[in-house]
Every structure is written in structure tokens, then in C-alpha cells.
């Protein structure tokens, strides 16, 4: 579904030397897979995930989405792909606190320019109800517990019926019990709804929820 070929991400530091956040990384993610990306802090996990999620572009190398090379795709088209095919879940939840829980979950639908085959509000409520958040629809996200906020973030990632969910240390800010609940949720989405899940973590017990573990060190896939 998504393929990275010799992808490097370089940052020029103080106009002096080039730092490689990613070094000639090769990676293929197949449909309906559950993959973990593991590595120490600063190894380039988030960078890799941002490139896979079309939020960032590599300095060199090629990224293919369904065999289509993305460097020729316009910014608007990349936005559309993020909107329709990818759902992001972040360690810091990244919800917009001035919007309500329900509005946060519905937010991706307002950026979609094609006809939706569902009612945004009904679908948002049904996902939130399934996640046990039906009493919190009109709350502000910052009034919720970490586990609840992460569930809202997952609900937002799911609203557009994405093919791929990218979770960057989704349990990083949660206690281990809540962390495992979130992991069970992601596993269920992968098993029952056949959504591809890419998980970034540095904890081995979290990584082991996945069938395949990719290790990364100093920007290189090992």
C-alpha cells in the first residue's frame, strides 16, 4: 500500500553540517497489516511516520502510495489523501481544545470535498458511544482524562473510514493499564475492520501487539 525506497531526510544544522534524521530507509507497508516501528529516542521514528503519513516529504528517495510516486502529487492532493486515507493518533493527543469533543471528531469531514456516504454527526456520535464517551460529546478535550482524550483522537482518526492509522507513541502519555486498553482498541480495529495500523513506540511490550516489528537506529532501518 505504501512503499519507501531509499528515503533520506536531511536537516542542515547551523548552515554547517548535514544531519540525517533518516538514512536510505526502505520500507513497505501492506494492506491490513499491523506493524510496529521501534527505536530509541531521536532515532527518526516520528520522521519516518510523518513521511509514511504524507505529512512530510523526504529530501531524497521515493515514496509510493498504491504504486504512485508522490513527489509529483500536488499539495492539495496530498491533503486529500491525508484526509481520506490516513488517520493520525499522536502521543500528545493533538486535539483542539476550543472545540468540543464532537466537533473535534467531526473536524476531518469539513475538509472533505467529495460526497460523504455517511452522516458526519451520526457517525461521530456512534464511534464516541462505542468508545464509552457518549456523555462527553460537548465537553472540551482538556477536561477529559488522558485515556479519554486518546480515544477521542482515535475516533477522529476513524471518522473518514481511513485505510491506514498511524499512531505515534499513542500510549506514551498514559499509564500502563490505560495504554493496554488503547492497544486493545487499535488491535480490534485492525482485526475486525481490517484497517492497516502502523504503530511507533519504544516500549517492547507495546510493540509486540503487532505481527511485524521494524527496528530503527540513527535513522537507519535495521
Amino acid at each position, binding site marked *: 500500500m505504501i512503499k519507501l525506497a531509499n528515503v533520506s531526510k536531511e536537516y542542515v544544522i547551523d548552515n554547517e553540517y548535514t544531519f540525517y534524521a533518516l538514512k536510505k530507509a526502505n520500507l513497505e507497508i501492506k494492506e491490513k497489516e499491523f506493524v510496529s516501528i521501534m527505536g530509541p529516542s531521536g532515532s527518526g521514528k516520528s520522521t519516518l511516520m*510523518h513521511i509514511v503519513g504524507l505529512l512530510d516529504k523526504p529530501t531524497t528517495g521515493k515514496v509510493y502510495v498504491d504504486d504512485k510516486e508522490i513527489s509529483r502529487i500536488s499539495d492539495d492532493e496530498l491533503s486529500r489523501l491525508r484526509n481520506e486515507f490516513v488517520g493520525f493518533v499522536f502521543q500528545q493527543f*493533538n*486535539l483542539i481544545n476550543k472545540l468540543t469533543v464532537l466537533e473535534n471528531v467531526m473536524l*476531518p469531514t469539513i475538509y472533505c470535498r467529495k460526497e460523504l456516504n455517511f452522516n458526519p454527526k451520526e457517525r461521530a456520535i456512534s464511534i464516541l458511544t462505542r468508545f464509552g464517551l457518549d456523555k462527553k460529546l460537548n465537553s472540551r478535550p482538556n477536561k477529559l482524562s488522558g485515556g479519554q482524550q486518546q480515544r477521542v483522537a482515535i475516533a477522529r482518526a476513524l471518522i*473518514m473510514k481511513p485505510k491506514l492509522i498511524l499512531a505515534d507513541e499513542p500510549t506514551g502519555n498514559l499509564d500502563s493499564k490505560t495504554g493496554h486498553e488503547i492497544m486493545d482498541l487499535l488491535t480490534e480495529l485492525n482485526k475486525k475492520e481490517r484497517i492497516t495500523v502502523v504503530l511507533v513506540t519504544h516500549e517492547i511490550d507495546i510493540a509486540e501487539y503487532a505481527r511485524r516489528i521494524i527496528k530503527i537506529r540513527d535513522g537507519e532501518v535495521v
Partner: protein
Amino acid sequence: MKNLFFIFKSAIDDFSRNKMRTFLTSLGILIGVFAVVVLIALGLGLKKYISDQFEAMGKDTIFLVPGKILSGGGFSGSASSFTGTFDNRDIETLKKVNNVVSVAPIALKSTKINGLLKEDFSDIMFSSESLLDVMGLEVDVGRFFDRSDVSKRAKVVVIGGKIAKDYYGNAEEAIGKKITVDDVKFTIIGVLKSKGGGGMGGPDYDSYLYGPYTTGFIFNPDKKFFRLSVKTVNENYVPQVKEDIKKEFLKRYKEEEFSIIEPTELLSAITSIFNVLNLILVAIAAISLVVGGIGIMNIMYVTVSDRIKEIGIRRAIGARKSDILSQFLAEAVLLSSIGGILGLGLAYLAVLSVQNLFPAYIDLTSVLLALGISSAIGITFGVFPARKAANLEPVEAIRYE
């Protein structure tokens, strides 16, 4: 455009959280729109006032004045050629021109007036019986002087309402009484209806006395007039009569020694001067709109910096650059429109409060202009911050703490 609702809702949420900041930011636009709308309203009022005055004079009337005062639609300002004055022979010439109904010569004298209650300086206008018609005057009590008063050189006057009130208490009291004009006794035979006006440098016809021009020769031994008013059959004859008068007068005077003026011509000349003046004032007021716009730009830059993370989140879930652009642009436009609407409302109240003193009014164009200008300022000054927001790299924005 289903996101338009969301865009405006989130902008309004934001404003209600920062009411004070929103108000202060839109204050510049508020003041600018207020000043512009009020000045336009005053300009419109002035124009209406002037054209009403001309309306009363009648479109079928032509004036002759010495010298060249109008050229190419504006006042030439060369009052230096204000030399020659007209005499009885000119009146006779005018009377012979086809389709001329009446001729009113005008001589003015500013002098000491002695009435029952008061002694003061005032203006007296000596003319023919046609003046009533030519100037659109109306008699309140008594009568205007007639043809026989003119031929008999009768010492009678008709006085403005204000003169009657100041010198005799009221119009009825004044009728039949004597009034002394520069030591010559006149009998008051009529009082005019109030025409309003004056107070803005223009003539206040309520404070004038009117007498037969033949009687006026007492003070005017040269028998000269500074203005001749000619009434035609109706306004359709004005151009032809003008031509004929010109032909006749050129036999006696040089081209630059007299001017033939149509009220409409004069009106458009005066109006064009006021338009220019008004435009200058409005342009000065518009500077505060620019200052207000800069204030909005400043706050929008702050807003964008405050919300980099939010922009990153929106980009990650599929917002296009254009979505971010329109979100921030909408906020800027809303901000300046709030100022515009408040400014317009305030201007309305201000105009309402001066309306019984002055015929100022706000027309639909001003309303549309105020709303148009304020949203245009929102767009102009909002576009730079909005573009900054739209052009943020999504990944940089989402990593931003």
C-alpha cells in the same frame, strides 16, 4: 462550503473569548468608518441644502452678472474683472428678447435699519415685482410690491420673517408700520414666509428687506445693478434665450464683461467644488482605516503564531492550504466587519442627532461603502498573516510546542 459555517463559528468563539482584544482591534476600523460615513452624510446634506435653494429659484431663470465668474464648469476665480455693472438700458434690452417673461434687476445695500424694537445693520435688496417669482419667495402677511409701486417709486418694503420678529415682535405687528432705512422712511406692506437657510455663509433671505428698484435709486444714484434675473416662459426656452441675450449684450459689452448663468450650471459648479472638498476630507478620514487595517494585521500575526499547533493539526487531518487561508482570512474580515458595523451604527446615531439642525443623511451607497470598505480592509490586511498560516510546513507546525 459546509466549512464556512465552521470557520465563522470558530472565529466567533474566538472573539467571544477575547472580547476586549476583539473590540480594541476593531476600534481603528470603527473610528475610520464612523468618520467616513459621517463626512459623506454631511456632504450629502450640504449638497441637498444647496440644490433645494436653487430649486426654489426656478430652473426657468437666468442670471446676468458682471465679469466672468464661470468657466469650464468651475469658478474661474478671476473676480478682478468684476468691474462693469448693469443699468436701465440693459433691462430694456432684456425685456425685448423673445420668450422673456420678466426681468428683475438686483441692487443690494447693507445699511442701518430703524424699527420699533431695534436698530441694527441689515441688507436691503432693491428689485422689481418679478423678484417674488424669480426667487421663489412667498408672502406670509400683506402683499409684495407690484408694478405700480415700481413705476411710482413708492417708499414701500417687504421684510423677511426674521426682521419682522426682531424689529416688531411678529408679522401682524409689522404690517403698516414705518421702518427707517438709512434715514429714509419706508412703509412695511408685507412679510415673507420663512425660507430657512442661512447660517452656512449663504444668504439668509429671512433677514433681508425688499424694495422697488426705482425707489432704490435714492441710494444708488448711478442706477447700476450688480445682478439681473431673467425669467423665461419655461425651462425649455433657457438655451435659446441665453443665446439671444448673449447676441444682444455683445453689441454693448465685451465677451469678458458679463456672464450669463443658468442655475443648473451654477449648481453643478458649486456641487463639484463641494464634491472635491468632501473627497479630500473623506480621504483624510480614510487614513484611520489604513491604521485600523494595520492593527488587524498585527493581531492576526499574533493569532497565527499562537495557533501554529492548531494549524498543524488541521493540516494533518486533511486541511488544504486554501482551507487554512480562508479560515484566517475569514477571521480578519469578521474582525474588520465588526468594526465597520459598529462604526456605521455610531455614524447613524450621530447623523440622527444633527438632523434637526442640518439635513445630513446616510444613503444606501454609504452603507454599502462602509461594509465594502471594512471587508476589503479585512481581506487586504488579513491576507498576509493568513498566507503565513497557510504556508507553514505541516510537519513543522505539528511538532511545534
